[in-house]
C-alpha cells in the first residue's frame, strides 16, 4: 500500500506546473475558480439569508409576485456575457496547445504506443527517423530534455489509453487506429509519473510510467548507452 513518498509530491492542490503552458492553464483555472467562488457565495449566501429571514411566522403573508422582467433579463445577460468571455478566452489557449498548425516547429518526435498495460515508447535515435535500426525502445520510461519542445505521437495498440502527466497539465487519449499528437516543453529537471487516465482494463491502475526531464548532456549520454549491440554478439550461456 502506502510507499515512502518524496516530499515534493505531497500536495493538496494543483501539482507542480512543469510545462511551458501549465502556468497558463492554471491561470485559466484560477480565473474560473474566482468567478465560480463569487457566484457560489452569492447564491448560497442569499439562500441561507432567505431561509433565516423568511422562516415561518404565524400570520405573515408571503410577497405575491410573478416575476420581474428587468431583474430576469439582468441575471440572464450577466452570466451569458461572462460565459462567452470565458469561452473566447479559453479558446485562444486551447488552440495554442492543441492546434496542429501551432505546434513548435522542428520539435523532435517521440512515438508512444500504449498497450495493456504498458507504455511502449520509441525514440527515433541519432538519425531522427522512425523505423530504422537505431530506434531506441523503452517500456514505461520516458526521457525528455529540459526546455526543449518535443512532439509526442500517440496511438493505442489495443484499447483506448490516455497519456496523462499531471505536472505537465497534459492529457491526450491514445486511440487505436487514429494517431494523435501533443507537444510538451518541460521547464524543470525532475521526475514525474505518467498515468493512464482512460480505463483500459483490469491492470489500468498499474499502467504507469515515469518521465524524467534531464539535461541535453545526460540525454546524449543515455542515447549513446542505448546504441544497439553489435550484431555478432555471442549467445549467452545460462545455467539455471
Amino acid at each position: 500500500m502506502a510507499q515512502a513518498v518524496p516530499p515534493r509530491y505531497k500536495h493538496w492542490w494543483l501539482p507542480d506546473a512543469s510545462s511551458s503552458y501549465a502556468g497558463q492553464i492554471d491561470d485559466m483555472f484560477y480565473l474560473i475558480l474566482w468567478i465560480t467562488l463569487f457566484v457560489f457565495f452569492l447564491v448560497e449566501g442569499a439562500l441561507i439569508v432567505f431561509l433565516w429571514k423568511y422562516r415561518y411566522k404565524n400570520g405573515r403573508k408571503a410577497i405575491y409576485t410573478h416575476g420581474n422582467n428587468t431583474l430576469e433579463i439582468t441575471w440572464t445577460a450577466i452570466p451569458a456575457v461572462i460565459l462567452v468571455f470565458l469561452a473566447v478566452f479559453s479558446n485562444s489557449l486551447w488552440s495554442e496547445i492543441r492546434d496542429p498548425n501551432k505546434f513548435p516547429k522542428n520539435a523532435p518526435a517521440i512515438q508512444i504506443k500504449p498497450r495493456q498495460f504498458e507504455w511502449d515508447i520509441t525514440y527515433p535515435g541519432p538519425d531522427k527517423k522512425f523505423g530504422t535500426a537505431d530506434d531506441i525502445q523503452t517500456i514505461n520510461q520516458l526521457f525528455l530534455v529540459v526546455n526543449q519542445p518535443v512532439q509526442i505521437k500517440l496511438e493505442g495498440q489495443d484499447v483506448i489509453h490516455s497519456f496523462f502527466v499531471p505536472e505537465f497539465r497534459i492529457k491526450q487519449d491514445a486511440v487505436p487506429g487514429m494517431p494523435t499528437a501533443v507537444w510538451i516543453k518541460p521547464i524543470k529537471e525532475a521526475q514525474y509519473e505518467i498515468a493512464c487516465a482512460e480505463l483500459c482494463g483490469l491492470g489500468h491502475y498499474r499502467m504507469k510510467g515515469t518521465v524524467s526531464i534531464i539535461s541535453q548532456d545526460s540525454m546524449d549520454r543515455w542515447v549513446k548507452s542505448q546504441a544497439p549491440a553489435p550484431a555478432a554478439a555471442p549467445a549467452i550461456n545460462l545455467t539455471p
Partner: protein
Amino acid sequence: MATLVAPAIVRKKPTKPGAHDAHGHHELSFVQKYIFSQDHKRIGIQFMFSSLFFLLVGGGLAMIVRLELGWPGHAFKFLSFLPSTMVAGGVILPEFYNSAFTMHATFMIFFAVMPFLMGTFANFLIPLHIGAPDMAFPKINMLSFWFALVAGIIMFSSFFVKGGAAGGGWTNYPPLSDLSELSGVNVGQNLWIISLLISGVASLMGAVNYITTVVNMRCPGMSFFRMPLAIWAIFVTAILLLLAIPVLTSALVLLLFDRTVHTSFFIPSTILVAGQPLVGRSGGGQVLLWQHLFWFFGHPEVYIMILPAMGIASDILATFARKPIFGYKAMVFSICGIAVLGFFVWGHHMFQSGMNPLLGTTFMISTMLIAVPSAIKTFNWLGTLYGGNFKFTTAFLFAVGFVAMFVIGGLSGIFMASTPVDIFIHDTYFIVGHIHYVLFGGSIFAIFAGVYYWFPKMFGRMLNETLGKIHFWLVFLTFNGVFFPMHILGIGGMMRRIYDYTQYPHLSHFQGLNAFMSVCAFILGASTLLFLFNLFWSMFKGKPSGMNPWHANTLEWTLPSPPVHGNFSETPHVFRGPYEYSVPGHTEDYWPQNEPPEGWLERAQQMKATATHG
C-alpha cells in the same frame, strides 16, 4: 379570462369507454390491481419500488467501490462470502472493482434515477396534475414497467455469469467493451447491451405515452402555461427520451453485432491483441464512432435526469414558500432551452479523445451557453424564495438542498467547459464530484423531496417528519463529506476509475482523505435504510394525511388520498395557474387551480340558461 366563458362542467370522453369511468366502476382482481395494473398511480408506485430496489443495488456497489478506495488492496475478511472471482482472500479484485463502478453507474442511471423520475413521478403526476382519468395508453404504460423490470433483472443477472458483469465504465468505450480478449468480460457485456436495449424500449413506450397524454388529455382550462413545472419538465424530458434513446439503441446494436457476429464497426484494422493482429475481423472500424453516438445520447441523458428533478423541486419550493414561482415562463423557456441545447454539447465529453481540436471550440461555446438557462433557473428559485413564509417540512428541506447542491454541480461544470482546464481535470475525480453533485445533489435530492411531498397522496398517510428530518441532515452532511473532497482529489490529479491510487507516489497521500470519504459514504448508505424504514412504517402506521396536507394548489390535492381508479369523479375545470399562493385579497394563502372564482358558477348557469332559451 377567456376560459370563464367555457361551459360549466365538461366531461372529456374517456379513452376507453367504461374501463376508466368512475361511474361504471367494476371490481378488479388482485392481479389486475396490484401486479398487471393499468392504473397510472399503481404503475407509478410499482416503478417506485423497483427503483428503490435498484437504488439499493447501486448503493451497495458504491459501498464496495468506497471500501476499496478508502483502503486500497486491504483484505476485508467480511467480504469473503463473495466468490473468488470477485474477492480473493478478502481483497477486492481489480476486475470486480471495475465491474462494481460500471454497474453502480448503470444501475443508478438507468434503473434508479431515470425510472424514479420518468417512471414514478411521470406516471403518478401527469394525469393527476392535468386533470385526466389516466394515461392515454394504459396498456403500453403497464408494458413499460414490465420491460423496465425485466431489463433490470437481466442487468442484475450479469454479475453471476462467467467473466462477471461489464467492467468498461458505464460509457463502455470500445475496443475494451468490444473484444472479450481485452476485457475478460464476455457474456456479462452482452447482457449489459441486451438489458439496455430492453430498457430503451420501456423508456420509449413511456415517452410516447407521456407526450400523448400531456398534449391531448389536459382538462378544460388547463392550458400549457397553466401546467405545473413538474409536468412541463416531464413533458420536455419525454421528448428528449424519444429523440435520444434511438441513438443509444443504434450504438448498442452495432456493439452487439461487433461482439456476436464479429462485424468491425468499432474495430480499426491496426488493432493488436497482445501484440498479435486480430484474426477473423475485417477491421476498418472507427473507435470514436461509439463515443459520438453514445454521447449524442449521453448528454441529453444527463438532462433527462435533471430536468424532471428541477420541475419537482420548483413545485415543492413554491408550495412551502407559499409564493408563486418567480418568472414561470422564464422557467418553462429555460427547460426548453436546456433541452434543445442539450443536443449540441455532446462533444464536451470528448475534448481529450483526439477529436479534431477545432471541434473543441464549437462544443465549448455551446457548453458555455447551456449554463445560461441553468443560471436563470437558479436565480428564479432564489426569487421564488425571496419574501416567502417557509414551512420547513422534510420535502422543503430536500428541495432547498437540491438548489444548494445543484449550484455547486453547475458551477463545477464550468471548469470542464473550458477546454484548456479540461485537459487537466478530464477523467479525474473532479468529474466524479461534479456528476454526483448534479445527479445525487440534484436528481436524488429532488427524488427524496418528491417522495416526502407526494407520499401522502400515494398512500393516504404522512411520512414521519422527525425521521425525515434526521434523514435529510444525515444525507446532506455525509453527501458533502463524500463528494466535496472529490474536487480536491481531482485538482490533485487523481484519476477516476482507479483501483489503487496508492501505486502512484504523487497520489498515495490521499489515502487518509479517501478513508474519511468512505466513512461518510457508509453513513450515507445507512441513512437510506432509515428512509426505507420510514417509508414502510408510515405506509401502515403513518398519520392519516387527509386530502390536502400541504395546502397546495394543484389538482391532485382536491382528490381523496389515495385517489380512486379513474381519478376524478367529474372532470375538473382549471381557472388559474398552479402557483397562486398568498394572493392578496384571497382569504386562504392558497387557491386551488380548480376553485371557481367568485360568482363564476352563477354566471355559468345563467349562460347555460340563455343558451338553451336561445
